């Protein structure tokens, strides 16, 4: 048998460990990554010419970041690495890519999707104003460009990233006006039993909050955002919110970093025709996988946050495990002790992730309360009112039907940033469970492609 063609999509912690595991078994995987440099978003590298240390950039995760970066560099002679390469469609067992050499299709025997995550965001009235960013964006501005997103920044939302980014900003000398957490502090107590399975990670989180408070930055829990007050020309001016005691307050700011944990970038799993299932705890649809990362489709494997949000440490484990599953399915010998060890580590990280989901719940009730004039879909400027009217007047009770009739999620980001909130609004307006609203189907291209990339032969 000729050497199998194995494609790993993504070069973050999951993709790196998957590729490394395959290379260790003597194979030469193809690693396709949209970024110019490997590392993914979490261990994103700063450009050449920047001089900050790993410790400066990644804090407690500096050693892990270094091991991913150095490990990937060491792997380069053993893999077919295609950076700057967008996998925009999957069809007939081939990955269709747009890279520096234009369009190309590459057949695969096994496909490992390590596609990572983007921010999960709950819209707030006025969040379309310039100066509103995702939490991940705020972190990338600092990590990859040594910039703060504004001269007076409010961080809003929930989840570990809220505290991590705020602490990193404080440490770097940015002006952070406040950290506003939508989850009540009590949720954290309830989540403790699950969180305690990773005491070191839990401790890191607690230390971050301490650092933020030590820097004199107010941290408020149980906050309900009311409005990003701003101007169409100049952008964000302040954030209006209701504190846990019910009082309404305004904080002046010129930038807001907002997010409620993360969501998988599962577009390719959908285009690969993988089954998805609804997860009640996180109120998201996730691609179905077995304990090792096999999807419902033969030859398609899932790992890292692209399949289920479990964090970078877990991504390294699930990347390895999915690669072992590939090897096993292709008939290569696999050490069962390795499998057992990785499965139990993956399960432990999974338990911790459930704890985080409990501690920092997605504020679905906020969707219900969004004023009608709120822009929900930033790409198409579709308001909550229009969406509700589509439900009421046109009877749309399913996500794709609401999209067809209202354009919600139909724009350039393909529903990445509004899809989950839109589903909540539809469910609330129709009075049906979120699960029955379904999920927006993904369509190629995974990201926009210029028509001119399709050259006629001879050019």
């Amino acid at each position: 048998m000729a050497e199998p063609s194995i494609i790993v999509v993504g070069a973050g912690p999951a993709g790196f460990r998957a590729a490394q595991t395959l290379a260790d078994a003597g194979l030469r995987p193809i690693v396709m990554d949209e970024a110019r440099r490997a590392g993914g978003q979490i261990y994103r590298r700063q450009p050449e010419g920047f001089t900050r240390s790993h410790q400066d950039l990644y804090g407690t995760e500096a050693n892990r970041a270094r091991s991913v970066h150095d490990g990937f560099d060491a792997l380069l002679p053993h893999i077919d690495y295609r950076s700057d390469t967008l996998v925009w469609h999957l069809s007939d067992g081939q990955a269709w890519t747009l890279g520096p050499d234009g369009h190309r299709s590459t057949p695969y025997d096994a496909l490992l999707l390590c596609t990572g995550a983007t921010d999960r965001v709950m819209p707030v009235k006025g969040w379309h104003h310039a100066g509103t960013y995702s939490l991940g964006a705020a972190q990338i501005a600092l990590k990859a460009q040594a910039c703060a997103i504004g001269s007076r920044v409010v961080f809003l939302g929930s989840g570990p990233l809220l505290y991590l980014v705020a602490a990193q900003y404080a440490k770097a000398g940015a002006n952070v006006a406040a950290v506003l957490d939508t989850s009540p502090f009590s949720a954290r107590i309830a989540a403790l039993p699950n969180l305690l399975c990773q005491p070191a990670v839990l401790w890191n989180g607690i230390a971050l909050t301490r650092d933020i408070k030590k820097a004199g930055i107010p941290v408020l829990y149980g906050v309900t955002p009311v409005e990003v007050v701003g101007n169409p020309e100049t952008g964000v001016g302040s954030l209006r919110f209701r504190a846990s005691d019910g009082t309404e307050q305004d904080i002046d700011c010129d930038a807001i970093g907002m997010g409620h944990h993360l969501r998988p970038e599962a577009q390719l799993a959908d285009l690969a025709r993988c089954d998805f299932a609804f997860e009640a705890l996180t109120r998201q649809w996730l691609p179905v996988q077995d304990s090792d990362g096999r999807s419902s489709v033969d030859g398609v494997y899932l790992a890292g946050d692209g399949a289920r949000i479990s964090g970078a440490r877990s991504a390294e484990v699930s990347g390895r495990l999915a690669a072992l599953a590939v090897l096993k399915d292709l008939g290569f010998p696999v050490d069962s002790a390795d499998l057992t060890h990785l499965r139990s580590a993956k399960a432990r990280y999974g338990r911790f992730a459930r704890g985080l989901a409990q501690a920092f719940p997605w504020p679905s009730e906020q969707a219900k309360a969004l004023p009608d004039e709120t822009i929900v879909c930033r790409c198409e400027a579709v308001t909550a009112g229009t969406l509700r009217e589509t439900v009421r007047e046109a009877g749309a009770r399913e996500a794709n039907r609401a999209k067809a009739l209202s354009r919600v999620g139909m724009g350039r980001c393909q529903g990445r940033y509004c899809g989950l909130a839109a589903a909540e609004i539809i469910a609330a307006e129709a009075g049906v469970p979120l699960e029955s609203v379904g999920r927006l189907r993904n369509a190629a291209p995974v990201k926009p492609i210029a028509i001119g990339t399709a050259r006629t032969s001879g050019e």
Partner: protein
Amino acid sequence: MTSPIRSDILIIGGGIMGCASAFFLRRRGISVNLLETDLVGRQASGTNFGNVRRQGRPLYQLPLANRSIAIWRQAQALLGTDIEYLQRGHMRVSYRNRPEIAGDMERYAAEAAQFDLDLEMISGNALRARFPFLGPEVLAASLSPDCGHANPRLTGPAFARAAERAGAGVHEMCKAVSAAKVGDDFLVTTQDGREFRAPILLITAGAWAKRFVEAFGETAPLTSRGPNMCVTEPLPYAIGPSIGVATPETMESVYFRQVERGNLVIGGSIQNPTFPDEYRVYVKPENSIGQWQQMQRLIPAIGKLNILRTWSGIESYLPDHQPVLGPSAAVSGLYYAFGFSGAGFQLGPGVGETMAELIGTGATDIDLTAYRIDRFSSE
């Protein structure tokens, strides 16, 4: 067991044909139940290009197309909702390497004039001056100023909701699994175990029509294909007519229109494989790329624009590219309207009104000879 749900007429298939028929039947006061496997207007009716064009149709189809366009022009008032119908023209262009097409277009224009279809032939400097974005390969154009385009995602559901408001029973997620004539009535059972009964049955089931046709002892060599569609980012609104390439070569046959919000909707070239049993269709990337190459021949500057999304749907085709439209040749009380072969969107409202007239009065002025189902039985 619950008793069957009765109506004067039962419709299987909630595309634009079924929904428009239900709407016009209700306007005649006839009671209707419509059964749809999924949601109304989701496949061919909801995913097509959105051309509301008469030009290019066979001359014998123009009376039906004319009946239809009269409805399109008053659709907003009739349906109580905006389906984004823009009467900004439809233009076919021909390439220099196929000069015979320009001649064909001129002959067609002369003949179509008898059917109230006015076409303006444009070429040379006049064409460049009015449509400066067209590529150098474009030789000549035939413009129908009184045609236009509309939003297919909205149209089927708009007819369904209007029919519902007028008293029709529109049953979505309600798959008809068997149909038979029992005594004077048609009896249709659905997957959820319900029974519907009516003395008249209309099959508007598109690519899924075949099994019902065969259940009544008739035949139609129905196949299905999926349109090759995509949409660009929004741009300042500038282009009124929808524009397409007239060519015998499928690969070259691309077309586009600009919606008022600014996006260009693009269709044509090679179609996609369909899986009607699974209710699925997949856009093949090679078809998208081929289409994008062809679009750059038509409009070189379009290379700068980004494609946001591709899609397809399940359309039903018949070998002569004409639908089956009219009464069954075998079973009394049974009617058909399916197989529109990728050209049914414009006809939809006219088909609905014609079927309602035919069923309600027993006759219609529209000549349906070309669309008889028994044209396939001698083959």
